[in-house]
């Protein structure tokens, strides 16, 4: 069995190539640093066993971040290297190629984005390149699934190059190679290039980002709400709920009936596994989840995310970070787990800690967001807006404070801006399917476990015990009813459910704001907790969580105080 490592510059399509060859699903997107983990897929071809490994991209064999370390380790353990080169960008990519040749391992050079060279007016003489590099050179198009077979066929022809690469003056040598093998034709700007230039101007960048943001919100709300009110809620109320109740009512044990369907008919208040559990996860959260990832998947593949990072660089600098931290934060709007993973593209521990804190605070995950919107809209739009403004404000201030205590300064922003691409519909659907499946795999066990634990705790009177302890502090500090105690425990298992649980408490608008802010911030959910400890280590995770918990308690107490003072002054906020 041969370990075949796919390596190359960031955003050269390594992950897509990996999924084309192994026919497995891997998330790919149009920005540097999509892949931070390694993926392995084994296959046999012509009696040879190969294990293909996909890892993060590299610009050179030098280590700048954790993901670079992963990529370098992979190269050292490999039996064979597939060096993926962006054919539209030969010069920059060859730097890594020449450095890899010095590693003296069997290698193939794979010229990806071959379909783009034609309309970009680039002609590359692959035979000449093969001669100069002394390794097989294969042209492929991972996007259009062309040339993949030739690449697999060439695996057996991989060889260690005998070319001697002169030390130093590497770029001069590359220049010579490029001028021999590549011919450029003059051509006109394409529409996407014009668009790219416009979005790079400060005004154009701001306008396009605001448009994209508003468009995204509008689309998510529109699709989410129409799916809920038009399809899923009628289905739940008219077909599903009567059906489940009909079956469950035949069970003779009251206890079992209560676990499965709860004791009231309102799907938000009963908290049975198959009523509230299903209603929250499938009817209230799933439509927003789907809508979010449709838009997000499009923006990712279009290549828009790094542009947002450029625009946000300024704000992030004030928090001691740089714009690329915006990408993990944006991922966190969907789910914290991939967001924490993607902090690997950052260069040092300080940046990681700051960004992780920021992810936890500024961006409630999508299930939470949709529950805040669903429940909050009954109090009015201003309440929902207030919650998000408070969250962003707290995140900003806390990060600035943490930063002032941490030594070091932000490293510089540095990223390649991918050219815009019209996303392939097929790939988008594939990616969406993977994300939806992940959601269900994670949600279903959590609901079951969560509800079960809550029931057991209830029976053992643990909840009433804890409630008794925290009743006074919660009332005094936050002005919330003591019933919130079990919800806080539940929140560790399922954050969206924890906010949904506020529904039966009949809170005032002010209490709802405080409750939502607290439940969003206080601790990460169990899945993100484990990801966090794996990414940042137990010590750093506990530091971050402790700080975030203190910040959330403080801000909620302050909000409570503010509401009281405003009330005494005769102001009725919300």
């Amino acid at each position, binding site marked *: 069995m041969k370990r075949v490592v796919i390596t190359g510059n960031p955003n050269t399509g390594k992950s897509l190539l990996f999924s084309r060859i192994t026919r497995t699903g891997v998330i790919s997107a149009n920005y540097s640093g999509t892949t931070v983990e390694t993926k392995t897929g084994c296959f046999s071809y012509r009696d040879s066993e190969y294990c293909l490994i996909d890892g993060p991209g590299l610009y050179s064999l030098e280590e700048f971040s954790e993901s670079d370390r992963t990529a370098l380790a992979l190269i050292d353990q490999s039996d064979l290297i597939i060096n993926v080169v962006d054919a*539209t960008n030969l010069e920059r990519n060859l730097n890594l190629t020449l450095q890899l040749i010095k590693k003296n391992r069997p290698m193939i050079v794979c010229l990806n984005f071959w379909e783009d060279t034609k309309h970009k007016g680039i002609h590359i003489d692959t035979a000449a390149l093969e001669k100069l590099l002394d390794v097989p050179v294969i042209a492929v198009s991972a996007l259009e699934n062309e040339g993949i077979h030739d690449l697999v066929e060439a695996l057996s022809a991989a060889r260690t190059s005998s070319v001697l690469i002169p030390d130093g003056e590497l*770029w001069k040598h590359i220049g010579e190679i490029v001028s021999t093998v590549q011919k450029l034709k003059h051509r006109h700007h394409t529409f996407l290039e014009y668009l790219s230039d416009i979005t*790079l101007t400060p005004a154009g960048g701001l306008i396009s980002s605001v448009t994209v943001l508003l468009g995204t919100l509008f689309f998510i709300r529109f699709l989410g709400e129409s799916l809920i009110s038009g399809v899923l809620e009628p289905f739940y109320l008219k077909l599903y709920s009567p059906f489940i109740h009909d079956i469950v009512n035949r069970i003779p044990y009251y206890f079992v009936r209560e676990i499965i369907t709860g004791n009231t008919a309102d799907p938000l208040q009963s908290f049975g596994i198959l009523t509230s559990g299903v209603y929250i996860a499938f009817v209230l959260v799933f439509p927003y989840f789907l809508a979010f990832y449709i838009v997000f998947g499009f923006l990712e593949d279009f290549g828009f995310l790094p542009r947002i990072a450029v625009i946000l660089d*300024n704000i992030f600098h004030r928090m001691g970070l740089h*714009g690329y931290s915006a990408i993990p934060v944006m991922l966190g709007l969907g789910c914290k787990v991939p967001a924490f993973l993607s902090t690997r593209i950052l260069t040092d521990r300080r940046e990681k800690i700051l960004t992780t804190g920021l992810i936890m605070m500024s961006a409630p995950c999508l299930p939470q967001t949709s529950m805040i919107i669903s429940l909050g809209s009954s109090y009015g739009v201003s309440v929902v807006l207030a919650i998000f403004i408070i969250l962003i404000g707290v995140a900003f201030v806390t990060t600035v404070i943490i930063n002032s205590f941490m030594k070091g300064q932000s*490293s510089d922003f*540095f990223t390649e801006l991918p050219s815009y691409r019209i996303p392939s519909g097929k790939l988008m659907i594939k990616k969406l399917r993977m994300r939806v499946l992940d959601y269900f795999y994670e949600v279903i066990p959590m609901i079951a476990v969560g509800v079960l634990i809550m029931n057991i705790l209830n029976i053992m009177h643990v909840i009433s015990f804890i409630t008794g302890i925290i009743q006074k502090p919660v009332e005094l500090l936050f002005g919330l009813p003591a019933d919130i105690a079990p919800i806080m425990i539940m929140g560790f298992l399922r954050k969206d459910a924890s906010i949904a649980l506020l529904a039966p408490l009949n809170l005032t608008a002010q209490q709802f704001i405080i409750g939502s802010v607290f439940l969003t911030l206080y601790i990460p959910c169990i899945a993100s907790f484990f990801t966090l400890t794996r990414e940042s280590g137990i010590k750093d995770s506990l530091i971050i969580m402790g700080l975030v918990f203190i910040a959330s308690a403080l801000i909620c107490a302050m909000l409570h105080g503010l509401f009281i003072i405003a009330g005494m002054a005769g102001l009725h906020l919300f």
Partner: protein
Amino acid sequence: MFSAIKSRTKRRINKKVYHSVSKNVMPDDNITGLTSVKNGIPLKVVEISGPEKSVNRLNSIGIIPGTVIIKKSSSAMRGPVVIEKNGIKIAIGYHMAQMIFVEHVTNNETDQVKNI
């Protein structure tokens, strides 16, 4: 907070050192930091200073002295500078961009760039 101030002074010192060097080696007043040139004009990188890590990062992507680049855009309030080299766009933080010293490319050289 303190470290930020310190680094700013450090940068100033760096710049001074650089200017003194430039007067001896290249008596050319056209050399400026990348942050203070206009957009859209071909520029030749003369020197890159700053922390070794930044220099290496720029080197790994092919931005080295002698490279011809075009500044595509600068953002307001010390935001990143976007440059283009052979069709690749790279966003560089303001401070890193300050350390890239460029000069205007003469017409003769511009033609060469087009021909390549």
